[in-house]
């Protein structure tokens, strides 16, 4: 992966985390909020593969915790797992234009994070109140992610294609 692409990935997750804590967490749709960070992580992971996805997820989780002033770790752990598995899935795809992979990845990733975060938080700090409404929030957030997954993926893909001219790891285009 080129340096430009790494910088772009970092910029994407930083901006997504800032938008998440400053704006999106204030938009309440029922009991839930849109989760942009997960969608950006799965979009990046689908496009760059498992290693890039793992690191992108980890960095996104750290940014999210730093900007929201909450304990580091749980978000980074879950987003790294989501990034890895989404990246593995992206590695076996033959196209990046079909709408089903980003849609499924966005829904599954959001569901994993929304369900995993209460579980991880409860395991490390049993005093945390995990009520039924958190599960309702998880389902609602997943539904919102299903709506937002494709537009976010399209934006991330367009941004990532800005660095598409660099083919350091690719064979010459003439082999096409």
């Amino acid at each position, binding site marked *: 992966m080129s340096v430009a692409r790494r910088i772009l990935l970092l910029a994407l997750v930083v901006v997504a985390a*800032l938008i998440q804590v400053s704006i999106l967490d204030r938009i309440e749709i029922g009991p839930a909020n849109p989760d942009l960070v997960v969608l950006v992580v799965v979009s990046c992971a689908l496009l*760059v593969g498992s290693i890039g996805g793992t690191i992108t997820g980890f960095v996104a989780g750290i940014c999210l915790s*730093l900007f929201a*002033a909450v304990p580091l770790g749980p978000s*980074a752990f879950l987003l790294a797992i989501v990034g890895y598995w989404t990246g593995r899935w992206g590695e076996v795809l033959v*196209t990046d234009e079909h709408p089903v992979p980003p849609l499924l990845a966005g829904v599954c990733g959001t569901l994993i994070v929304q369900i995993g975060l209460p579980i991880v938080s409860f395991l490390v700090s049993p005093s945390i109140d995990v009520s039924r409404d958190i599960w309702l929030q998880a389902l609602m957030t997943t539904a919102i992610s299903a709506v937002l997954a494709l537009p976010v993926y399209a934006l991330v893909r367009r941004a990532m294609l800005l660095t598409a001219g660099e*083919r350091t790891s690719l064979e010459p285009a003439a082999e096409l």
Partner: protein
Amino acid sequence: MRLFTPTKPSAKTPDRFGPQTPPTPLERSSASAGPAARLARRASGQAGRQVFPRRRRPLPVVRRLVLVAVLFAALALISVSYRGGTPHMMRGPQTIVLDAVAPIERGASDAWRPLAQSWSWTTGLVHARHEESALRTRVDKLNGEVVHDHVLQDENTQLQAQLGLQKKGRYPDDYKPVSGNMIARPASQLDGSIVTDLGSGNGVAVGDPVMSARGLIGRVTAVSSNASTVALMIEPSQAVSATVLGHDASGVLEPVKNDGTPVMQLQYVQQSAEVHVGNVVVTSGWTSSSASGVHLQSLYPHGIPLGVVTNVGNDPADVYKNVQVTPYADFSRIDVVTVLEPEGAATTTYQQPQTPAVGAPASQVGVPAADTTKTHKAKAASHAAKHTKAAR
């Protein structure tokens, strides 16, 4: 359209770079991006499908090593952040980053505020019709009470003038209110904290009480130069010593539900205490003195509105009365916050939480989990110095 590559690479594929797996979509599209490639694909009837070059891919062992390393780092961060079973912020790095991004968060928050208020106004219309009739009835009732209050206020003013007392303002005496905005809040409802744009540059210190327009919302738990973290009182680890206005009932207010519409419980209220639905609950603002001469007082001053009693359970089998309180503050829509800065308190110390003895009266419950205390030795010393100077 076929979505997946075969699980095993073709035997005809040249393996020039060692073990090979199919390339990622971006790398494939980056090689086939551009108008010419797209036109070529469309002309050949392959729109939406791309033919990609093979590339060097990391070995599976490298991929797994990266995953294990990253997960290990995340677990290490978790163990550092949750040492002792309670969440902590990593003071150094998190404070530095929070300081750096606070202006950006403030800008984004300010830019978004008009749109957020429009959204809030629009969603509020849905409930407006249902609330209208109830509010009309309440307005009629309150109009009568206002007249009665005016009479009492006049009487109170006259009595205060006779006693030489100062008229109290909206905020407690000896506290300076500083207002600011919430600039960030965590995505998860598990994290009962917010970030404000008030920092040590505004005089904010750890432990300061924080109010919204309606009442107490929490206390400052971490401060950087231009931002601070506020732990909301609906967080399970928080507790506030509280009293019921107009009745001899006091206890510790703790959250029992944290789902956006929180209900809190006033713990350790004696069965003999008289509490009714609709009673107002405020901070008790207790003080105590030890034999060594150290004066301790509650972090929260007396009289900050907390909420209203919504249910009173009178089960005689219980040692204490079950008093449910709905907070005044709307924790899902916090925007402007006011930090109460103590004036003149030179040092602040924190007392460890004490577990109340079963059957102990509410007044002897001790220090609530988050209702930290401060010593006023320095304040007393400075007052003594002032008096000495005045005497000279």
